[in-house]
């Protein structure tokens, strides 16, 4: 019953989900860095930076991810010759997909971090200054520890959304789970079984992440 699964070797079932995981991890790290920078801009005392951060977030999160991913391929690569240092077409697609995913996900990471900072009551910072702590001490000892704990839940959600969003990379020919499912489902008779296999794969990827990080965020939440 499951023997047809081994007929596919480009990619294999495990290879496809491996690609999904790879996309998730690399894009996750990239968007964490870019999103943190954006969040820093949005909460900075410099109006111009705040404006840029706000504009970026509002523009990017209102564009469908599909549009962004397709644009990296048909726009950046085909018109402007952005190949991300790749000579091989498959590698290029993979890197472009990561570029698109990072650009998109960073907007949500930024909002998650900002909401974490916003949960810290103003009185905390005022009290810190009142006892004579310097700016860096206030940040290091009082605000960031509280903000980090408040940010785990929202960031976990962003990570899970990202895991599911990596499927959009199939639109530019990256051989990940959705790409393989499309191939299988068109050529095989067992549509329900294929659907179940891939659904199960994503449940395995997202559910434990959600449960573990959800539990962690509840455990670490600052009780107010």
């Amino acid at each position, binding site marked *: 019953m499951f023997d047809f699964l081994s007929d596919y070797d480009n990619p294999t079932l495990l290879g496809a989900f491996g690609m999904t995981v790879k996309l998730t991890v690399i894009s996750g790290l990239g968007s964490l860095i870019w999103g943190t920078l954006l969040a820093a801009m949005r909460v900075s005392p410099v109006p111009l930076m705040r404006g840029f951060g706000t504009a970026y977030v509002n523009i990017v999160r209102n564009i469908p991810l599909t549009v962004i991913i397709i644009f990296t391929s048909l*726009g950046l690569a085909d018109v402007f010759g952005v190949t991300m240092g790749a000579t091989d077409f498959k590698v290029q697609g993979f890197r472009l997909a990561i570029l698109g995913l990072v650009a998109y996900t960073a907007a949500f990471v930024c909002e998650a971090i900002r909401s974490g900072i916003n949960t810290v009551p103003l009185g905390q910072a005022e009290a810190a200054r009142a006892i004579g702590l310097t700016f860096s001490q206030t940040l290091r000892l009082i605000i960031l520890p509280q903000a980090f704990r408040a940010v785990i839940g929202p960031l976990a959600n962003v990570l899970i959304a990202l895991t599911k969003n990596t499927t959009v990379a199939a639109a530019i020919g990256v051989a990940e789970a959705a790409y393989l499912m499309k191939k299988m489902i068109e050529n095989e008779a067992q549509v329900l079984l294929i659907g179940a296999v891939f659904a199960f794969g*994503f449940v395995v990827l997202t559910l434990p992440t959600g449960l573990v990080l959800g539990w962690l*965020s509840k455990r670490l939440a600052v009780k107010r």
Partner: protein
Amino acid sequence: MSSVLYDAPGPRAKRRNVLISVAFFALLALLVWFVYDAMNEKNQLEWALWKPFTESQAWTTYLLPGLADTLKAAALAMVIALPLGAVFGISRLSDHLWVRLPAAWVVEFFRAIPVLLLMLFANEAYDRWANLTTEQRQLYAVVTGLVLYNACVLAEVVRAGILALPKGQSEAAKAIGLRKSQTMRIILLPQAVTAMLPAIVSQLVVIVKDTALGGVMIGFTELLSTRATLAAAYGNPIASFVVVAIIYIVLNFILTSFASWLEKRLRRSKKSTGAVLSAEDMEELNPAATGGTYGTGAGGAAPGGGIT
């Protein structure tokens, strides 16, 4: 100046901020120039490529029909997903374990699966077991995928909306002798729907964005796929991307602004209990399993929260 992070700037901080502003402006200018230069070099700024968008043909032949399909799919998905979501959301609040558990499983299952897989599956299923024209099949597949996922997200919204109501509401209902079903129907649901409105409008943005998936992966003729035909006709990929992106941004910005306006209005209104689910709370509901405690819209969000 009320920020957790820094005090009102003194003379030195002001000077430093001005310096940072200037440096950042230079960076931005460099970026703009870099993009302009790249566009110029590839001749993407020529008026001939942008001109079609000032004439009616590009709009009437390509963009507007595409936009109409996008909106049609989004509206259909919303209208079908909402009652379904309400059923599942209320089932999850049931006192009976045999109702609560299956509902919870179904909801968590469909929230854990990417919309794209649901669409691909629905497309293939309709192709094999239903007698539909190609166009119908594509629309049905996109709507089915969107409904399965969004009904489950909306189920969580309904649940959170009901839980956000003050406890006194159901206690008062009990006190005057209403049954459980009556309490839900007469007291809780009507108020929860009001509290949920902003969140529901925010979910529309997610739905509109996801329709684009159907265009690329199963050939549904929505805005993004009509962009491809348009670009092929006029030979202007970059310009068409820019215009389509702007259409999406404007459309979704209108929706989000409407959602935050609704939220503000509901918070102010005298009639309601002031329980409102904001777009901020929505973001917690969108991805998969997070285990269940959700904000009531009172905390967390900055004043006028959501998206400014």
